């Protein structure tokens, strides 16, 4: 349950860009409301599995940190999950969570901290009380904080053993240099070690107030009954006005001024290349076209990038692109695994290909006459794929709950149902436009992880 990936802040990055699951809510029984203390709530019935998924999101992430507090949110997230409240010790919470058969986890990301619990349907009340208590009745102690710091140091070392996670973290740090997103979500050891209870408590008291949080519950319940329970449990939390700490971090991600290329040596047998570009933010109208462009260029069974890299020269064995839209800036990431001797050529080819993406034909509409019938519909395929991905995500109660909680806190739009409508409206010209705006830049970050000079020490 709590594998190294499951608690990874980086995993959160892979989870957190998707409004897509929100399609179709109109056919399910759902109810949004706001408590008097300001907590925004969304309930959604889903009866195929007798489970209830509760996700509480706090509008607090790396975006709210400065260099001196880098990693504080991640530390706080760990502490909240495992170290106890005014009523129960950390071990008591753990014991009760198990007794109720619960899955219990949390994630910190660039924008949000998510606290989630999944329980059998009959334990809904326990899940609500548990989440309310850990979020709003935390008991911080110096000893507990120091203990959790030790666990985080282990996590930091683990990250440096994973080629792609490490390279992704470095890409963020350099692509968002000068912005809070450039601070590693998981923190830096020297900063974490210097954090005192007072500083952490100050953050906690400012941010963990109902009006800065959202709660999404998805699962096998009666919406009327659950609403009463939510109002009874979370209505107890006092209304506290939210006030941002000083200094307020920079909001909009600044443009990158030059290309950054890094090489990291690890004890690996293959090479791992990550290339990052700045991309549209969570509320940017370009996000739909960029989602589609990512699908066309770097995903699926035969992405366009594979034509460039996997031809006769076979410069890469695996290719994958992803796009993560955060509140104050987005990021496009291209992942390649390859032979170490091909890193330079593969990087050059990939950058050249991405630069040319602004001139590509993506749809039969780009052709005239007979040629239309021969042309391949990349755009149509990508739209279908995004529809498929959205439908699949809808099958997961936890994925739906995460998306809903996230939407409340990050989206400027009232309706969560516009994502697929906007995807359908995108044209091939829009793809070329976003390719030109975001992938044709000469500013990028490329991080390659290669074997140590003198050869890898491990077997294999």
């Amino acid at each position, binding site marked *: *349950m*709590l*594998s*190294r990936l499951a*608690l990874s802040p980086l995993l959160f990055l892979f989870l957190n860009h998707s409004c897509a699951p929100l399609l179709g809510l109109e056919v399910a029984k759902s109810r949004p409301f706001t408590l008097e203390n300001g907590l925004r709530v969304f309930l959604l019935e889903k009866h*195929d*599995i*007798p*489970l209830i998924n509760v996700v509480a999101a706090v509008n607090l992430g790396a975006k709210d940190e400065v260099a001196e507090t880098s990693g504080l949110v991640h530390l706080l997230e760990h502490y909240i*999950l*495992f170290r106890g409240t005014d009523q129960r010790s950390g*071990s008591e*919470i*753990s*014991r009760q969570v*198990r*007794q109720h*058969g*619960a*899955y*219990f986890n949390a994630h910190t990301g660039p924008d949000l901290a998510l606290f989630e619990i999944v*329980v*059998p349907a009959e334990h809904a009340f326990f899940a609500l009380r548990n989440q309310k208590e850990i979020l709003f009745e935390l008991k911080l102690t110096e000893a507990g904080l120091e*203990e959790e710091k030790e*666990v*985080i*140091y*282990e*996590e930091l*070392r*683990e990250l*440096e*053993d*994973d080629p792609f996670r490490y390279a992704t973290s470095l890409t963020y740090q350099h692509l968002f240099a000068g912005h809070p997103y450039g601070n590693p979500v998981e923190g830096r050891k020297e900063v974490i070690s210097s954090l005192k209870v007072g500083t952490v408590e100050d953050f906690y008291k400012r941010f963990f107030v109902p009006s800065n949080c959202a709660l999404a519950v998805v699962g096998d319940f009666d919406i009327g009954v659950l609403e009463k329970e939510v109002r009874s449990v979370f209505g107890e939390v006092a209304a506290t006005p939210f006030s941002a700490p000083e200094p307020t971090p920079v909001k909009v991600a600044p443009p990158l001024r030059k290309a950054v290329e890094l090489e990291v040596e*690890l*004890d*690996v*047998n*293959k090479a791992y290349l990550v290339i990052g570009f700045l991309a549209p933010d969570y509320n940017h109208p370009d996000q739909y076209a960029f989602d589609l462009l990512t699908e066309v260029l770097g995903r*699926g*069974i*035969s992405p366009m990038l594979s034509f460039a890299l996997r031809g006769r020269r076979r410069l890469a*064995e695996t290719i994958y692109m992803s796009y993560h839209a955060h509140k104050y800036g987005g990021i496009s990431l291209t992942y390649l*695994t390859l032979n170490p001797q091909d890193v330079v050529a593969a990087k050059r080819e990939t950058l050249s290909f991405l630069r040319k993406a602004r001139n590509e034909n993506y749809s039969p509409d780009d052709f005239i006459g007979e040629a239309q019938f021969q042309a*391949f519909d990349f755009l*149509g*395929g990508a739209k*279908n*794929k995004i*529809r*498929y991905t959205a*439908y*699949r995500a*809808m099958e*997961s109660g*936890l994925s739906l709950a995460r998306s809903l909680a996230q939407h409340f806190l990050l989206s400027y739009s009232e309706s969560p149902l516009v994502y697929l409508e906007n995807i359908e409206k995108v044209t091939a010209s829009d793809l070329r436009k976003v390719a030109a705006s975001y992938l044709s830049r000469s500013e990028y970050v490329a991080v390659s992880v290669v074997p140590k000079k003198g050869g890898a*020490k*491990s*077997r*294999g």
Partner: protein
Amino acid sequence: MRTSFRSVFLLAWLSARILPITPISPLFSAEKDSLSNGLVVIYEHNDSSPTTFLQLLIRGGKSAEPEGKKGLSFLTTRLAVEIPDSSKAQELLRLASSFSVSSRGDYSLINIECLTEGLEATLRILARVIASPLFSGMRVDSIKKYMAHQAKVESDDSLVIGHLAALASYFGEVGYGWSSYGDEKSLAEIRNRDVADFYRKSFTASNVVISVSSDQKKETLMGVIEKAFGSLPSGKPMPPAPVALRYPEKKDLYIPKETKQHLVCLAFGLAEIEPRRYAMNELIGNFLGKGSGSKLWPLRSEAKLAYNVNCRVTQMQKGGILEAYLETDGTKKDQAIYSLREVLNRVNKEGMSMEEFEASKAATKTNFLRDNELKDQRMATLGSFEMLGLGFDYMAKFPCLVDSLTLEEVNAYFRATLDLERALLIVVGPAN
């Protein structure tokens, strides 16, 4: 275009002969049917989304690979879906259909996922390829290169290194004891005719099972599947593989790797699969290492030895392994080895308490539901149960089986299975 697919579906002129329906539970309501050539289809109607997940499970897997031909199962299965030309690949891309391939101890898999509106067109392309794949030298070499690459990628991950070392120690050079990608030497040994022979033996109606979840009505869906796979030759099922668990003579294994963290793992052999034993293994894995409150958790929360503590259970037909592990800093490695042994020793002697037992049951059942919420997850589990000899309806029985376990039998099983005298210690990390 979409409308025309639908109208074709509606024809459903190829309805298969229907065996007695075996509903398995309101929660997992799958049923078994078969095509005209005898190929078994496990079908679940699920209209939670307009998508279809279809899985071909091919008996054999790693355990059926002849000596010295490690990787043959994956190679053959992957080649069986190698798309012959780019126009077909593009058509699949347009349909948003995708497929993936893997090979396990007892079977290999082809997973196909698509929007239901594109199912027939998808199967028309893929089934034709699967029915008559081309094993040319260029294609075989290309997939071999990919496999050699993936094998190296696996060897860059300490957890995979440890897992493969445990499999090799408990199952040796026959059966389950290696990566599904083989290695460079074994791949070089595989000839094109080996691939063709393996394909001929494996891809027969009696050796393949299809599990499928779709919003499509059964009759229509079976018609589409019949059209796609009804012509696979009947053939014979693969004979059971001569695989047996053996306890390694060497009790510790140190694998050098210049990493920041050390992987410290205690691995135990698990006996041949059997319904009650499968449930007990899952329960014990959960009790030991799944989440806060598990038995290994204090190694993280109190001893602060690791971020990642876990227990992984790998169950195959003729045996399996349980790995209890943590990843720790080099300075804490010895302490981690000592503490891990100490926890397992204490648990082995004292067993579970009633409270721990009940909590582990609850957690195991919730995890099972969570792990089978999506169509693809559910079909993968149903299919694996069928392949492992437990039967697809084990899916519905599993929660009841967990409930029926008694503390006495679990503790007795615990003592017999998690015997530290027969455990294998694996450490992956810097030599010094």
